[in-house]
């Protein structure tokens, strides 16, 4: 793999170079220890929060917009909308988010490609960033602490310099736009990189045992945990909004007074009451506990059946977002404990 180093003081310059070609998005502080991806243009390099652990919303917000227009309609028929072809660069995705992106990349390419998602995705350059966990991260539990590929560049913070892995031709091109800022990797850089990995590895230990989890869940669908969760959860959908791999959406028409309008889609959640409603007010999961359970089953059983991996990437967002304080790790461990 092609590797380089970049001195910290050149990062801003490098991002400026990137800005010439791309709308650069960086993690910035939102106050109160929270972060969000925002345009570099509106903030300046000083705002770049390299120390962030997780953003309020995952990078999916750039690809599957919270609300977007699918097509327009009028008396003449339905008309496509152009997705803005503005290239952009997402700087600073942690491995868990890169995993998340991979999962939804795949999801939105089968069985049909989602054209809006794909064209935004095609226009994006992704720069990863190495990280250290906080108390809510559980990537080591979900096995997403490491990522090989799925990025154009990946930055490891070695203190006064970054160790940079190039993951694609586009990433290579980016480096060569400002080649003079980058240095070839020497032995010492490699040593420091490995040292960083070593240190990080010791902070990243699995939080709970999830061995056989899918099998346990499937074998024990009536686990008492689901009823307890059904009582604690208010089905506000916060967890699904912030989840990097939740992709459900709702389609509806927004009409103007002249009868023309837009067909829109908006993030939806399997926790909402009308999610599965069909004509005649029939629901398939009318109990809140069924809905919560469905969410966990989808991540931990269904997705594993389909793709041999859990759809949870351990980013800790849902736990952070949940006003009711429901914490995935403890849910998983309690479910797991039913087979102890």
């Amino acid at each position: 793999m092609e590797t380089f180093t970049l001195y910290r003081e050149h990062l801003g310059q490098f991002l400026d170079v990137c800005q010439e070609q791309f709308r650069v998005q960086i993690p910035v502080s939102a106050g109160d220890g929270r972060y969000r991806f925002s345009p570099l243009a509106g903030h300046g390099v000083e705002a770049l929060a390299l120390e962030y652990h997780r953003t309020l919303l995952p990078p999916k917000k750039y690809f599957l917009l919270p609300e977007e227009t699918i097509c327009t309609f009028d008396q003449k028929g339905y008309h496509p909308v152009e997705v803005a072809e503005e290239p952009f660069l997402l700087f600073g995705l942690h491995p868990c988010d890169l995993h998340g992106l991979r999962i939804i990349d795949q999801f939105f390419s089968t069985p049909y490609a989602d054209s809006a998602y794909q064209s935004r995705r095609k226009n994006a350059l992704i720069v990863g960033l190495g990280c250290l966990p906080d108390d809510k991260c559980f990537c080591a539990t979900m096995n997403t602490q490491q990522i090989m590929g799925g990025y154009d560049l990946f930055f490891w913070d070695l203190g006064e310099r970054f160790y940079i892995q190039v993951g694609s031709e586009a990433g290579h091109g980016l480096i060569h736009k400002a080649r003079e800022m980058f240095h070839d990797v020497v032995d010492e850089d490699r040593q420091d990189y490995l040292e960083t990995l070593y240190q990080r590895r010791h902070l990243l230990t699995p939080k709970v045992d999830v061995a056989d989890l899918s099998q346990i869940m499937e074998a024990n669908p009536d686990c008492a945990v689901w009823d307890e969760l059904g009582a604690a959860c208010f089905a506000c959908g916060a967890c699904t909004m912030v989840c990097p791999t939740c992709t459900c959406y709702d389609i509806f028409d927004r009409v103007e007074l002249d009868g023309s309008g837009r067909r829109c889609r908006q993030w939806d959640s399997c926790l909402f009451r009308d999610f599965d409603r069909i004509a005649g007010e029939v629901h398939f999961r009318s109990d809140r506990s069924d809905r919560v359970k469905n969410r966990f089953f989808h991540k931990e059983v269904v997705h594993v059946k389909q793709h041999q991996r859990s759809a949870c990437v351990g980013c800790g967002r849902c736990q952070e977002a949940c006003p009711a304080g429901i914490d995935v790790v403890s849910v998983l461990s309690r479910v797991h404990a039913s087979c102890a």
Partner: protein
Amino acid sequence: MNVLLPLSAHMVHHRKLAQDVALFQLQLDDPFAIGPSGENHRPGQFVMLSVPGVGEAPFSICHAAHIDYLELCIRRTGSVTRRLFELGENTLVGLRGPFGNGFPMEKMVGKDVLLIAGGLGLAPLRSVLQYVLQHRESYGRLILVYGMGRQAEALFREDLEYWIDSTKLDVCLAVEHPAPKDLFPADTGHVGMVLERLELTADNTVAAICGPPVMYGPVAKILRSKRLYPENVFFSFERRMECGIGHCGHCAISCRSTCQDGPVFSAWEARSLGEPLEV
């Protein structure tokens, strides 16, 4: 191509079939468009039909591929369907599809075909029936069991008359509330009672079922008692659908999307998805 973009189509004709049920004939504006044209679908597939400003909903194509327009048999229940009934001929609608797997016509080749319809469930099964009639020599016996509350609710009356008279298939009607002026010979009761008395060759019969969900459990039970193989019994399922391409999440049953992997599932599959069917 954007699969979520409906193709413009026009309503050619619609006519009442029963109280709150009508047959709609639709035609794509662009005859060369790749979309639901009336010819390019498998029996049991459905389309997403849009009414501008109101929304979109899934409907089964109710005929086999043979005509140059699309026929949908629709019951008025909610917003989209209510509006459809108000629309005049030649109004603009949108169409996407066809979607879904449809009934496995290949699996039925050489076998007896048993169609069990409850109420509106006749719509998708009519496409299977027409398909079998079109390829009559490839299939064994063809039996239609059609249940309804009252004969006044019977759909596709001309078809029924023709089918009843025809020697190409057997038709058994089950009517829960008979009335003196009823036109068709029928059993009194629900489809289960008709099924009970049918002589079926257990290892050579394929069943296709569509109707209200309450019908599925009892029918599955009877078919099991008749020793049909669960992998030869096919149910068409109904779930909320919005995208039709397995993305929006609404129709998921366990790890399958009803819109893409279904709506037709064998009794075995359905049960493995957690549907409470006894097979």
